[in-house]
């Protein structure tokens, strides 16, 4: 467990530093964030015609309100934490890949819920929006990461079995 923990800290630090590089931001993070804005607005348009996405900004055509999906709101850091926890844990690459895929989906489904709820909370009450944005959803997304990781570890074979397969 100690080794897992140290690897986890190292990997998340490395992944975060890579994420912060300008070339990664421009070529990966910003297009990905724009795609989140597009998916969120497409989902909202099912029940709300007044939503429009432009780049990383989602705006309401009925109310003078818009949200910009910025760093911390695109789920990338939560994904890094989960990926680091999966990478650091002893498992086969097949199981790790499955964990990445399902974990990525779980985090970003929750994150789409965060973006959509914040969009409507912000139109309703600015103070509640600040709370939900800065504290509540941050905590819930981390909880999501912890749940996914715990469930993943419970589903994969024990490390001795992993060693036997290798």
């Amino acid at each position: 467990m100690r080794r897992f923990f140290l690897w986890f800290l190292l990997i998340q630090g490395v992944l975060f530093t890579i994420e912060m590089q300008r070339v990664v931001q421009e070529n990966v993070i910003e297009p990905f964030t724009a795609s989140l804005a597009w998916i969120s607005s497409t989902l909202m348009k099912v029940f709300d015609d007044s939503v429009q996405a432009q780049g990383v900004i989602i705006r309401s055509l009925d109310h003078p309100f818009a949200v910009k999906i910025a760093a911390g709101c695109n789920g990338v850091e939560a994904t890094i934490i989960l990926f680091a926890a999966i990478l650091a844990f002893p498992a086969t690459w097949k199981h790790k890949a499955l964990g990445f895929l399902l974990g990525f989906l779980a985090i970003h489904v929750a994150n789409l819920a965060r973006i959509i709820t914040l969009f409507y909370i912000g139109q309703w009450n600015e103070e509640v929006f600040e709370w939900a944005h800065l504290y509540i959803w941050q905590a819930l997304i981390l909880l999501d990461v912890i749940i996914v990781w715990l469930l993943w570890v419970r589903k994969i074979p024990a490390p001795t079995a992993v060693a036997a397969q290798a």
Partner: protein
Amino acid sequence: MSQTSDNNPVGRFVLKVLVWLPLAFLVWYMLAGPLLWPMRPLLDFGFGSLSQLVDHVRLVHGQFIFETTLEVKAPDGRTGLAVVEVNALKYTYNLPLLVALLYAASDKYFTFTRLAAIYLLLLPFQIWGVSFDFLSQLVFHAGPDVARQVGIEGLGRELVALGYQFGYLMLPPISAAAIWFLLNRDFVLELLGMPPDGEDR
């Protein structure tokens, strides 16, 4: 019903976290002033006595107000001293989060001593966040005159940017998750369906 929850320790744990989380957030917000207070003299010492960047640090409604010694020029030619505000709550929400995670794991944390220890464990991470927020505002947002007086250039600017992003985006959740994990190794092993002495994992 009880048999179902016994077979699902992760679900039971998550439910307990969801019960504790709103309560922990409420208490944290109501006690924000006293909880942030110990950070003030530490920031005052670090940025005042040690680096001479700050004349005084005040705490007002969850915001640290840094009254700096750095001169700024207004467009009309008058000069004054730069004042920087930092929302400390952005860096301290890991406290209610960790408390909820710990209370969901075990009732042994229901003591004042342990709560105080948890608070102290998180304090360095919180100070990191507030400090780099302050520095990044000086270096990147207060104008070139202020940035020049701070004297952080080249690689130093990159490190301030990275330190700020890390302190804002990663440290609050990482610190809460890591301390929860370290304090509850046996409980985590139980959630993972492993024996308490599972050192090899």
